[in-house]
């Protein structure tokens, strides 16, 4: 086979592999992802569906009872708090006022988090805002 033809074949093979991979990436990412919602949006959301609830832990709302952690999450501006129950690992940065993400479902007005799904932001990001002093 002459070399330029060989190169062309190689190029076509490589490009089709890349296109296949890209198509797989796009397809799986849309099917495997979970939707993120804030408390104000989740109140109108589909109750049986799994969502990622993102927002701020309401200060003074955190209660441990045995393994279970109960708290409330509000929108970032503090509005629309909804109750959350959660079991599993609590990351260290978890604290009232922090922004967190919990994956779970809405059941009878309470957001029930999946086990070990609680995520808090990396501390370097909120280090500047711990005092609430705008700098």
């Amino acid at each position, binding site marked *: 086979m002459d070399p330029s033809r060989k190169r062309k074949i190689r190029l076509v093979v490589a490009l089709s592999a890349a296109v296949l991979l890209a198509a797989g990436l796009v397809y799986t990412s849309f099917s*495997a*992802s*979970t*939707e993120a919602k804030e408390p104000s949006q989740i109140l109108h959301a589909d109750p049986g569906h799994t969502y990622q609830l993102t927002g701020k832990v309401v200060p003074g709302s955190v*209660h441990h009872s045995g*393994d279970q952690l109960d708290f409330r999450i509000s929108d970032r501006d503090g509005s629309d708090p909804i109750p959350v129950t959660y079991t599993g690992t609590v990351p*260290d940065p978890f604290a*009232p006022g922090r922004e967190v993400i919990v994956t779970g479902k809405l059941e009878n007005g309470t957001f029930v988090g999946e086990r070990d799904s609680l995520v808090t932001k990396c501390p370097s990001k909120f280090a500047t805002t711990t*005092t609430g*002093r705008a700098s």
Partner: protein
Amino acid sequence: MPVEVRHHDHGASQLTLLGSALLAAALIAGLYAAGAAVQGARRHDRRWVDSARRAVYAVAGLLTAAVVILEVAFVSDDFHFALVADHSSTTTPTFYKLTAMWSSQEGSLLLWAWVLSLASSGVLYMTRRRHREIVPWATAVLAAIGSFFIGLMIFKAQPFARLDPAPAEGTGLTPLLRNPYMAVHPPMLYSGYVLWSIPFAFCVGALISRRLDASWIRTTRNFALCAWTFLGIGLLLGSRWSYEELGWGGYWGWDPVENAALMPWLVGTAFLHSVMVQEKRGILKVWNVGLICGTFCLCLLGTFLVRSGVLQSIHAFGASTVGGPLLVLIAVVAIGSTLLIVTRLDGLRPERRVDSLLSRESIFLVNNVLLVGLATVIFWGTFFPLISEFFTGEKHSLAAPWFDRYVTPLGVLLVLFTGLGPLFAWGRLSGDAARRLLLWPVLAAAASIGVLLAVSDAGGHPWALFVFGFAAFTLVALAGEFRRAGATRRALTGEPFPRALATAVGRNRRRYGGYVVHAGIALTLIGIAASSSFQTNRDLRLRVGQTAKVGDYTIDYRRLSADPRNERIAFTAQLDVTRDGKHFATLNPARNYYPTQDPSAGAIGRYFMGESTSEVGLKTGAGGDLWTAFQPDVSTLNPDIVRGNRMLANAGPVAQGIAIDVLAQRYAQHPPPASFRVIVNPLVGWIWIGALIGVAGAVMAGWPALESRRRLEAAYRARLGRELGAANPPA
């Protein structure tokens, strides 16, 4: 400079002003340097270029002074500095006062600009008599990037912002960051990001001046290696911190901020390999300039992601003061470098073609495709929330399983190429030679897979099995390379084998250092595969005196102790661990409660309602780790806390301290059941051992550069001398 700032308050109050003045002077010097360098490049006037270089030195000096002032303010608790008041306190240990600078956005920017100014000065000093076409443009690029970051500090995030009157006490450093890994991790990561700007600047210089041979690569090779190593150390420390400090037992979570540091490291790894192909074979030129521009963009993107919070929430975008300008810089760099590359394509033509699939260049090409593919997958997954919002209006995010699905097979293939690359020669390898070189590594891979299938349950985890097999292949292949190096030299000189090996390796440290890095990475990947596939993970609920069995270990919760001093309340569990009836270890996982400033928590409650951090109980061994974390149930204290809040609301700190002491001790004597997480993590320590070996290899590869540069310089001078018809150009 007044050092005793605490006692001379009036003098101290001028220091914030002095800091701001230094930044302003640095900005003027930086802008001048950029302008003078462009002028020098366009007029081919060396005087402008020399002046620009000296202005870059001046920037480095001014920023060094600014860093010193800020550090003095931290150490001397000068709360006139808003930054000090927000991130330190009189009770913060001195070591963490020194490192508190980069726990803030403003301090991080100063660190960025400072490291960049030092590295720029270094590389410009080293090249002051060379590459006369490239250096002026590189100077302009470096000065422009530096000025951008100094400008951010002056207009958007002032590190020398002033508080008047100064508060009596500062907020203190976030408890989570009071960890030695976290003290070193940010400067490593930032140094990694910053140092990539050196090869980038020289690449841009080469593109503008159309000097597109490999000279810009050779000049900045060691800066690229340094950047790569620092970024790697940053990743390594970050993962270790997560494993030891965050209390969830993992070392990698595909968090956007982690991904932000991994992507430039992967593309940078591809760059370090493909530039070798250009140096040796004169091909992949477009690819190389593309890779370095991509790496630098990803570094800026990493800085942007860490600082803007754009990915957790679209609403946080704009709330950050530096996000917008950084995004503009990224766009300018990306569009500018694409335009430059497209207009220089004629100068970037390959000097030859890849002859054979059985050659090092084709192996490197595949490895590059794999690395860039990995970075692409991670990029897509990281930015998917924004992508999905753009197309569907709803924000969807991807979790670890999605990442694992793509990253695992690509990573497994990379292990194989880590071993294949060193085996193959440049140009073309005959089928016979290939068979001879591959024999032992292939046998080793087959043998290790066979043994693992026979004696373990590894058959249930095919990807892990592939990693073990390919890692065995790689390690044997690398050992063979070292053996051949020693044997060849012994045959030539008759030296005894160890000395022959040492000399042969010492003569080509760049190559063999690279092989050591490969061996380290193979070990790291063994650790990752073993610990992610064969981990035993149990959540227990135990009373004092109860035992539980996890894997081969029996865990006995002996007692709880309380230590309510040192700014926090520490509850420490004592776990006695036995294995096969014999004592194995005593582990002391602990939970520390830091007080909150939130007044609604109450006089006593505020000591329990604030942040808490985990100190894991860890027994490390070559075979694996036993990892334990502890979460006491302090909710039973609630009635006492409510009573205490009422009774001691107006009491002094001494009375409150006594009350907390009593509460904590009484709790420790009769504790309710507590939650434990126990993880048996096989071979996990090899992740960091392998990484340390990799760092050692990188240092080994970078070290002889001085010698080889001297040789290179001599050759260059000789050529220049011939071309000029002079015997010797001025030194």
